[in-house]
């Protein structure tokens, strides 16, 4: 498995650490209410197909990435800097 780091180019999976679903970037407002925060903290989709995850390029450039991959085919279709995603 290789991940196309936007800074470093395609790199081996061993350089990366997995964090979890990229919904972590969509932090609710402080006053969004218990339901929104409960959902944000505890509930995750388990898709068969495309999923977006946060990966840390720990043995490379040190950037956090949002990686798009397919849980059914294991195909990695893209990666972008989490800072770009979070600010868009």
């Amino acid at each position, binding site marked *: 498995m290789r991940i196309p780091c936007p*800074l470093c180019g395609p*790199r*081996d999976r*061993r*350089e990366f650490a997995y964090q979890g679903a990229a919904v972590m970037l969509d932090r609710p407002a402080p006053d969004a209410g218990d339901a929104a925060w409960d959902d944000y903290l505890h509930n995750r989709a388990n898709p068969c197909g495309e999923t977006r995850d946060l990966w840390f390029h720990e043995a*490379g*450039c*040190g*950037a956090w990435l949002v990686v798009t991959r397919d849980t059914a085919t294991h195909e990695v279709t893209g990666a972008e800097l989490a800072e770009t995603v979070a600010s868009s």
Partner: protein
Amino acid sequence: MSVANLVVLSPCDGLLPGTIGAVSITETTPGRITAILPFKGQDDAVSVALKSALGVGFPAPGRSQAVGDVRTLWVGRGEALLMGADCPDLPGAACVDQSDAWATVEITGTPVEEVLARLVPVDLRAATFDPGHTARTLLGHMTASVTRTGASAFEIMVFRSMAETLVENLAHAASAVAARS
């Protein structure tokens, strides 16, 4: 022991130089090393300030720049090392002296790509990795900075505490390549 009795030793003191088969490994002394991390939105200003002070700018990802012995080396997202010169005043960046933090070696010889291919999970062949190209990646289990310095020459930097492991890994890989030739 008083401070007056302390002796300055380089990170690879007693370990290098060495020659295994057609590969030579030597420790190099890049001089003063300063990590430069531009603040948000200051990338261009820092690069311009560096360029006007020393002639080298802030390098693009995966690249290094050099003017004589003064070099800038990309080492991560928003981070570069300035080597071989004192750091100029850069109000737009955090600058940290790391001169004693790195072990720096040069590995040269015709089969150097074969040796590094046993340790580094990046394609370092000349077709994709030119002189001046640099990669932050793994060497064995260590994080390392790998830079091509010539047709058959690479510079490798690891944290100083890993100097012995670096030399052992390189020597082991070089021995294995030499045994097959």
